């Protein structure tokens, strides 16, 4: 994570150490091949476990009707779903809900996090209530959400937002507390007004913390989304899972599970790359 920004500890020293480390890994193609090999072996291992599970299910007369859950039928079905653009139809609504929920979480979490990071009063006032609320599974709010919102869609967006707001809020607040007070002093001395302190010091200083919060939030939001879509709605990945179960199409169910995993993985990787690109810290 981010260290206390003291010039001695990172601005001066780490640059050289870091570039040395980078040079080392660049100059070592065997290391990269090795990493790639291990990654592929890991994926193969997962497929193997899945295949063994499928075999066991198929051989047991009590569970044989679920045998389409195995890799081969599932992957075949997945290819068909991609070809018929069923994948797009089923993920589009889910992605929209995630985006809306995350947006709300950012709009509420970032300013609240800055306030809590900056003001001791706000921090102490909200500490217990927020830690308490954070520990409640967003899904526990489901009945409340259903009552409070006019449409199923909005209820789901609310649940996603409730799940996503905490990581963003706490990560932002932690980032603000790590801001070097000297940066603010320098900026004030050079004539920065409060708005400029925010845009020229606080936001750039905590940009990575916000993005890290969003990355964590995306993880929980994605996990909450599927069960939330078991509610009322007739679209999205959660609905697709439920629907496949009801129609006993276990190959479709397994293929949908694959889609959920792949999209979650891709979104997380994209955010991780974005954080790396925007990062101004020279070590980590």
């Amino acid at each position, binding site marked *: 994570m981010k260290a206390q*920004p*003291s*010039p*001695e500890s*990172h*601005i*001066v020293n*780490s*640059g050289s150490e870091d570039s040395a480390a980078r040079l080392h890994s660049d100059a070592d193609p065997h290391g990269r091949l090795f990493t790639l090999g291990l990654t592929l072996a890991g994926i193969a291992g997962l497929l193997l476990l899945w295949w063994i599970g499928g075999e066991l299910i198929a051989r047991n007369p009590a569970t044989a009707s679920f045998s389409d859950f195995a890799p081969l039928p599932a992957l075949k079905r997945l290819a068909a779903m991609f070809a018929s653009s069923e994948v797009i139809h089923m993920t589009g609504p889910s992605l929209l809900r995630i985006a809306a929920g995350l947006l709300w979480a950012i709009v509420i979490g970032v300013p609240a996090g800055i306030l809590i990071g900056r003001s001791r009063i706000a921090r102490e006032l909200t500490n217990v209530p927020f830690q308490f609320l954070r520990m409640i599974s967003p899904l526990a709010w489901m009945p409340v959400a259903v009552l409070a919102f006019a449409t199923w869609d909005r209820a789901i967006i609310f649940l996603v937002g409730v799940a996503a707001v905490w990581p963003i809020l706490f990560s932002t607040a932690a980032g603000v507390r790590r801001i*070097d007070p*000297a*940066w603010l*002093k*320098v*900026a*004030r*001395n*050079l*004539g*920065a*007004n409060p708005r*400029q302190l925010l845009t*020229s*010091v606080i936001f*750039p*200083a905590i*940009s990575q913390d916000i993005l890290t919060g969003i990355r964590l939030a995306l993880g929980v939001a994605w996990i909450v989304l599927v069960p939330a879509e078991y509610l009322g709605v007739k679209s999205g990945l959660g609905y697709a899972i439920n629907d496949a179960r009801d129609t006993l199409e276990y190959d479709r169910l397994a293929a949908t599970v694959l889609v959920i995993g792949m999209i979650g993985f891709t979104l997380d990787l994209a955010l991780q790359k974005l954080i790396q690109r925007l990062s*101004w*810290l*020279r070590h980590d």
Partner: protein
Amino acid sequence: MTNTSASVEGKFPGWHAPVTGHVRGAEIRVTGLTHRYRHAKENALQDINLRIASGEAAAIIGRSGCGKSTLLHIIAGLVKPSVGEVTINGLVIRHPSPRWVMMFQQPSLFPWASVADNVALGLRFNGRQSEAKSRVAELLDLVELGSYASRNVQDLSGGQQQRVALARSLALSPEALLLDEPFSALDTFTRSTMQRDVRRIARELGITLVLVTHDINEAALMSDRAFIMAAHPGRIRNEVTVRSADTLTGAPGFEQAQRALIEAYEGAAGRSISSPSTDWTI
């Protein structure tokens, strides 16, 4: 900005050719200043009175905790005093202003920005971004970092970073530079170069210097006059005229100034006078 004031020329005979950004240095007066931090048991500063002339280089020396940084922060308008006031050019200081800029032990550059963007910070805060291009190039030349404009500040050495901080401080043509041990984190060689450069630049531009330091040599090298502070509560004990203009380590004027400073310092600290040596630091 090319205000060739008589006082500067009088002070430094042979001074010609105004450098761009030449200003009339701030005249700083501190009157009846007493300061106590919240929850503190004693005053950090007690009844401070001093006057620093336009274009003068004043050093403030004294042992750790005697209130040097507090005094400088109050002069900069970054801390509000409990009693008394600071005026600069007759104006009572209530807020920080880019017309009197503080420099700290750490350069505290913004690590997410390039050298040029760091130097242009003050211009941007004051709606003068349009001047940045020419002004930044000029300032980077002044601190001999002309070819570093687009580099990230994290790639620079400690001394180079402190030069960027100096350029950043000079961007808005301040009338005073308030330096809080700005070279103490640098190695000896870099430090002496910086001491000479800051003194030269301040003199060329007519900027008033207030230098807080632990280092007697630094005070002897860089200042015209030194205030010696004593602690508990922080107050000014003594004042020594140094007149450092063009003194070099080893020159007779330097040693004389050094001896006078050590005597005054030890007097304030309540110690007996020891024999001075050339690398006498506290």
